[in-house]
């Protein structure tokens, strides 16, 4: 009997896992072979959903947009976060205030932040364009121009999340032994040389962690384009998750949406596996 107690204790989690994780995952795999609009009975359609996926121009555009977002967002995130972390790692006045200020957007609701940025980036009434006008620069159609909208969203997402990565980089920077810098100073190394040959190699694991976290976060891009641009203009900000959501909850194509989700999950798995392999080689 005594042996059973641990099982009883973990049973709530097992139950939770089965009901909310294992069953939905298995059910969604089954769904990929069906056509189902929630209210009518499911109909077996074989691999039709997969065939449709390969011919779905919009899905591939959504994947391309998501990857494009990652390519813009991740380097920007790392450069900004690392710069700020370097700045906050110095002995400066108001250090605690700045650390708090940079972290603040992380804890604010994503929807609130997105609406705020929508106001900032408006063409005529937006604060950013007003500032540009005052400086005699032409206004920019941040959210209305297909070539620019994704950059605007990446900028916003960077601002929202950078505080978290600043903290991670700060921790990384503080683990670098001071003796290395002292030795470099004695050799007459410049700031850039110290950063390039001491700091960067020493915080490599932190950089990889930030890359992995940003990748996973970036793949789940949804709130920002959903609220700011609805995926437009010309589908240039339609993310993969948003498209999956649209198929499921706008058109009620549950089977097709599950197929998109399943293939997208495989893609993320592949990217993370490549990153993991690369990290292991580097370590």
């Amino acid at each position: 009997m005594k042996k059973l107690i641990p099982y009883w204790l973990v049973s709530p989690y097992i139950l939770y896992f089965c009901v909310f994780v294992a069953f939905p995952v298995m059910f969604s795999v089954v769904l990929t072979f069906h056509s189902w609009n929630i209210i009518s009975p499911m109909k077996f359609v074989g691999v039709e959903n997969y065939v449709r996926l390969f011919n779905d121009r919009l899905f591939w555009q959504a994947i391309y947009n998501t990857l494009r977002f990652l390519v813009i967002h991740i380097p920007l995130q790392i450069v900004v976060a690392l710069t700020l972390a370097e700045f906050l790692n110095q002995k400066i006045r108001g250090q605690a205030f700045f650390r708090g200020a940079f972290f603040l957007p992380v804890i604010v609701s994503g929807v609130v932040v997105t609406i705020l940025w929508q106001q900032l980036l408006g063409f005529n009434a937006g604060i950013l364009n007003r500032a540009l006008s005052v400086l005699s620069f032409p206004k920019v159609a941040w959210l209305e121009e297909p070539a620019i909208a994704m950059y605007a969203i990446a900028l916003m997402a960077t601002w929202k999340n950078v505080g978290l990565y600043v903290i991670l980089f700060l921790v990384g920077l503080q683990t670098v032994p001071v003796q290395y810098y002292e030795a470099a100073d004695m050799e007459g190394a410049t700031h850039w040389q110290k950063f390039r040959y001491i700091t960067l190699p020493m915080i490599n694991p932190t950089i990889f962690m930030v890359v992995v976290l940003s990748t996973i976060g970036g793949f789940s891009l949804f709130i920002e384009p959903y609220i700011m641009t609805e995926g437009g203009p010309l589908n240039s900000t339609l993310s993969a998750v948003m498209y999956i959501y649209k198929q499921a909850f706008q058109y009620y194509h549950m089977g097709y949406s599950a197929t998109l989700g399943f293939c997208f999950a495989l893609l993320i798995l592949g990217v993370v596996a490549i990153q993991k392999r690369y990290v292991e080689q580097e370590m």
Partner: protein
Amino acid sequence: MSQGWFMRKFGFIACLFGLMLGGCRQVETKRPLLFWCSNNAGEITFAREFTEQWQRNHPDKPLRYQPIPEGQSSEEIILASVVGKTTPDIYANMWQGSVEMYAKAGVLVPLDTISGFMEFLRVRCDSSVIQEITSSDGHIYQVPWKVNPIMTLCNTGQVNGPNLKGPPYTYSSYLNAGKQLTKDANHDGYMDRWLGYTEVKVIWYQRFFNFYPLYLAASNGAPLVTNNRGHPSRAAFNNRYAVDVFRFLQQLYRDGYYPKERLTSARDPFLNQRIATSFTGPWQVGFLERYKDTTLHYDTWPMPVPDSHTGPAYTYGDPKNIVIFNTCPDPRAAWAFIKTLIDKPGDLRLMELTGQFPHRRNVDTDPYFSSFLQKNPKLLPFARQSRYIKGVDNCEVIVEVFDIISQEYEACVVYDRKTPESAIRDAARAVDVLLMSEKMNE
């Protein structure tokens, strides 16, 4: 604390939890009918009045009302209730375009099987309305209830200015108005006064306020989808009317008479007199009357039409209808209650409380409603327009049809990346593929 005690306690809690879950199932004994109404103040008052009246007159047929639970949209709530089998017995405010999906899922009562329904309907509505709401299986699952015709609201102070003929509009005169009215009032190099504004968002229902009413106006109410029983449905909008509408709207954006940016985050641009015209419904009248300042004067006209157009200008009527779900234990009693909502006194009360129009014939000329319209002259054009309105085609995938049109609308009208001809042709082709695949899935 022994292990046996622990196991007994755990088992007891598990049993209690199971009983609680079991208790959630509603006991289907003789229960009051449940009527879900919309959750705006006017319609809640309407529902309360008529429910109380029903209770007084039919104490043996209990009925209670409840505003539809809060959610992102009423469509989502209804879908969730169908899935969860917690539907009300009667639901008022069902979008006409959703009914076919529910009808095919078999969750609605075919109302034409209730005695007296068709006779009542024929008195209330024209044959064209009855045809429009007839499902592909030949049954009728919805009671035409209320409409909100989309029309052109004009700032008369601006549109009757010099060099302008004023409304009613043809495409040429509307574009000419754009030329005269669009300007840079604060001289900062950017336009800040426009002819009009319509949402550039790709969301399908935004086409109800630009492309669709203009298409109906141009084509005298032509369908988007042909729905011949026994034959596969096809796109019906690959015609000169749709092309002309796209070209007209494209011109408005190309010449800057409509802004591409979103104006919705600021104060209402029509109220603010930043735009001179707006394609909108009668709900806007109540809003304007409440918040307008003394310098704003406005009136309402039909949607702009092609220069060669003859006959009345149809528009989208935004019909919302009443349905009975098949979970209803007494559909006859439910229909008897619905009749009290949509007879003449019911329709008049709807107008008085909500400013919306009943979906019945001759609202504008029927003496029963004349005193209300005399007291509310700003609503009179909408009442007249309600003779020439259309809903959406009875098609299970109509939302996707509008979404496909929206994609092409954005590419052609807003961003000028396609010609109107190729945009309409591509949209029609995509709709045909969609309808074909739906047919194969049936």
